């Protein structure tokens, strides 16, 4: 009798427990607008961070190549910034810029800057000195020297840096949930806070991974287009 009641109780409980599937296409369909809005923010933050990082990193890398006294402290400082956890970084910036996407952007720029400076410097140091010498003796000015000799020769390293920076920026943007601007990360913590809504969490996660993959493939394509000579050499 009591066993039967227990079994019945168990059945009722099982029926009561709401289904919480990991994958739910209807969630994606029903919340398409929200997902797109967060995706848009994610993409905007990533592009802005990588572009700003590159714009700041390039002159720094050029300076660091010129003087070795500058390169040491620059690389040391970049190691320190690299080691600061994103949570702490966003928390440090938060009192200045508040709950805005600027807080996230500044943190992301700092990280992408650090990655890019290192890769840009590696690329520039890999340019053979005799080629630069030859360019200069042919009367190239410093701008032309950079544009026609340094840039093409260092391009593979530059692009490698951009790809790493982009992929890790996509992943890092999610930590922006701390200040309410984490792009697709909002879905991840949103799902967690909405009583462990798995479909929302998985959507956010897959969105991030797919975005990183697409960005990486796009940049690989850009690299291919920009370096037609590499393709010729391979063929």
């Amino acid at each position, binding site marked *: 009798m009591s066993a039967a009641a227990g079994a019945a109780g168990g059945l009722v409980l099982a029926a009561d427990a709401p289904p919480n599937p990991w994958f739910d296409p209807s969630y994606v369909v029903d919340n398409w607008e929200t997902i797109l809005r967060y995706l848009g923010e994610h993409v905007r933050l990533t592009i802005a961070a990588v572009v700003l990082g590159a714009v700041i990193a390039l002159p720094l890398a050029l300076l660091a190549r010129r003087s070795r006294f500058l390169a040491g402290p620059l690389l040391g400082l970049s190691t320190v910034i690299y080691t600061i956890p994103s949570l*702490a970084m966003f928390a*440090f910036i938060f009192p200045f810029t508040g709950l805005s996407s600027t807080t996230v952007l500044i943190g992301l720029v700092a990280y992408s800057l650090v990655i890019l400076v290192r890769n840009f410097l*590696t690329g520039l140091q890999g340019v053979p000195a005799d080629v630069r010498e030859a360019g200069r003796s042919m009367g190239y000015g410093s701008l032309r020297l950079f544009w026609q000799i340094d840039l093409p020769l260092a391009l593979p390293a530059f692009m490698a840096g951009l790809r790493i920076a982009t992929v890790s920026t996509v*992943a890092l943007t999610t*930590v922006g949930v701390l200040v309410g601007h984490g792009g697709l*990360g909002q879905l991840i913590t949103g799902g967690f806070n909405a009583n462990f809504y798995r479909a929302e969490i998985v959507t956010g*996660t897959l969105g991030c991974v797919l975005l990183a993959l697409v960005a990486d493939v796009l940049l690989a394509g850009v690299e291919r287009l920009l370096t037609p000579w590499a393709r010729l050499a391979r063929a």
Partner: protein
Amino acid sequence: MNAFQDAIVYLNDPFNWTRVGGILDLLGVHLAISAVAVLAAFVLAFPLGVLLGTSGRGGGAVIVLSNVSRAMPTLALLTLFAVSPIGFGNKATTIALAVFAFPPILTNTFVGFRGVDADVREAARAMGLSRTQVIGRVDLPLALPLVMTGLRTAAVQVVATAGLAALVGGGGLGRIVNLGFGQQNYALIIAGAILIAALALLTELLLVVLTWAVTPGPRRLPFLRTRTAAGAAEPTPVAAGMPL
């Protein structure tokens, strides 16, 4: 900046450190979670890396793993484990962190062991060393710098990421930052951030010194190596760090 002064005041109060659930308690949890995660990852990844590296097989899979792990947001994995049947809390956090520590250790061990000069190995074999002796006495010392790089990357990553666990119901120092955001208390946020950043930097420093102590041969601290512009000569540590 007022919040920074208040944060220093908060950190200067011994009671904030010693009370139940204070900084020392949270630090203990933070370190325990991180240590278990790194250790578990090392126990699994190191033998696998040695196996794959010495046989020279599976390189493609290792590189794919390290690339995918870079695209996977740390927050996402922490959340996924927190809502899995394991339940949120320190257990789920530890498993998620161990998953994160796995790729850098595996990749660097693999690259380190694969990079050992075949001639050196051949010579050791010719001198009568057994296969296991070659791994222990020839491969390991030569691969050690990269193995330690992997361990350092993983440890710093785990210590840093453990702070994020507080966002999804885990413990550790991230609690302070999370509480600060909940209470709109800037001083608390900054104090937590200072603690987490200091812990990550200390971990890095400690492991750099440890690497220097255990690495045979010319004793050079890793951060001095960058200044001698030997960066190009280093083998490619594929999963070298990324921001956390």
